[in-house]
């Protein structure tokens, strides 16, 4: 691979889609999926840079990120599920008892 720019550009685009999704979507599950998309964009960047620099740090990091993402799913879905069972809604706008 000679030119890392297209890969980094793709990862930046994915990261942006994820970030915008977190900001505009209202369903907690979808928001959470957008966060996962951002983490995967990070993985793409890490692997690209690892290839460019010719060392393994980035690829090893990508593995760790996958493990972290899996752990985050467990915790996140548990929390979102509890809220959904209580309120019958997974919308982040409905959870608005705490404000100001």
């Amino acid at each position, binding site marked *: 691979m000679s030119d890392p720019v297209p890969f*980094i550009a793709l*990862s930046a685009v994915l*990261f942006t889609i*994820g*970030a915008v999704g*977190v900001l505009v979507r209202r369903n*907690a599950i979808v*928001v*959470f999926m957008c*966060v996962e998309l*951002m*983490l995967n*964009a*990070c993985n793409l*960047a*890490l692997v*690209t*840079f690892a290839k*460019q*620099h010719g*060392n*393994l*740090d*980035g690829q*090893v*990091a990508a593995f*760790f*990120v996958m493990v*972290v993402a899996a*752990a*985050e799913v467990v*915790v*996140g879905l*548990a*929390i*979102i599920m*509890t*809220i959904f*069972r*209580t*309120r019958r809604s997974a919308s*982040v706008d409905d*959870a*608005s*008892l*705490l*404000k*100001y």
Partner: protein
Amino acid sequence: MEFVKPTIEYAELAPLLIVFGVAVVGVVVEAFAPRPLRRPIQLTLSSAGLVAAFAATVWIASGLDVVADGAARGLVAAGGTIIVDGPTVFLWGLVLLFAAGGLMLFAERRLEGGLSAFAGQAAALPGTEAERRASSEGLDHTEVYPLMMFAVGGMLLFPASGDLLTMFIALEVLSLPLYLLCGLARRRRLLSQEAAMKYFLLGAFSSAFFLYGVALTYGFAGSMQLERIAEAVRNDGGNSELLLIGIGMLSVGLLFKVGAAPFHAWTPDVYQGAPTAVTAFMAACTKIAAFGALLRLFHVAFGANRWDWQPMLWAVAILTMLVGAVLAVAQRDVKRMLAYSSIAHTGFLLTGVLGVQATSDLAVGEITSLQAVLFYLATYGFAMVAAFGIVTLVRDAGGEATSFERWAGLGRRSPLVAGAFALLLLSMAGIPLTAGFVGKWAVFTVAMSAGAWPVVAVAIAASAIAIFFYVRQIRLMFFTEPQGEVASVVTPSLFTSSVIAVGVVGTLALGIVPGPVLDLAAHAGQFLR
């Protein structure tokens, strides 16, 4: 590619290994021990683990080798991923001390009439028969102890991490258990669950930014090691956009964790919604760990281009102090007021962080930025843990009563508790003869000597605004006639009362004789590079 087996310095990493070991054993206890035995076993395990880890920390601190011509002490452990140096062991000591305080608040059962402050069964829906049954059977989530130990482990690893990957893992290990702990309150469960969801979604969002920052910084430097990044920053070989965006995104992640504006929005909601024992633990320990990591990242990895990031920190510090102090004035709830006060403290701490200078610019015996921040963290921790400890005591029929009306005239009904709370508030306000004054003096001095006088001017203005709402709270407790229903102070068990006593004594002691702890912070020396 050659793989080299790293050597693991088990003795120097003992605090980490003990805490994580206890957490794992705690999970096994949950699986196999009969229910009535779980609480005593978990309590014994966790407290023994924290004490052992603290003892190991003291032992390590006394035996660190002097390196780098006496400027720093310590060693690089586990193949460069963990750095055990003077600041690390100081922060370890603080985290373990305040975690022990948090553990005692977790263990309190007298306030709820024999039940803990945590949900009997988190899976039982609020207001259902299942929840009432869980309550009447006296069920208890003893999982909170292992969860807390995992969080403590992450907090120990966070300021000690020698590369960005370890830092990211530590960030997640400390955050994930905290998200869960926030949602486990026994009373006001909707608020608690909402707090957990907000904290989780925003926390995950900010971690993603942190991770992209890691990737970009790695792209710039070709290595995750802080020391190698520092080298690449010094011999800047182009691509500095990559570095600058990387620094920006790493800061988003870290500034979120410390609760700095404009990333502070979660703080009041989570501090209010979470069980108060968890709030006390996380307000003190998360901030200590995250400031440790922030200092290490900016001082070690990006120390050479501080002219690039100092203006950014100037703006953030100014905004944070103003937002914290001004919005605290508008609060009508004690927990929210303390949350905004903690945001203002973040601003003061950042004032200390941006006071970094080259060693050659410092006069002999002048206090360093690192030393000032370490000392401030100690004063802040004592005041916060004890203040939230007192909030758990003030109750009415519905559990904790946190709205201002209920606190009116508390000083006449329970002068001792209200007096202790007033003292802690005065320390947070920075009145002389309390710890807060010395802490503020230290961070303002270093910022001044680094030429950040505009930030110090705003900090003094913010302190003045802050005095207004702290004194208003004192007036409310002592000089306001109670209207309608009021809260009263419930007598706690020895657990909570000793936490409050230690917090108050620590606040006074650090205010009257700050010398020993300042010396200890000075003795910690610089970061090992």
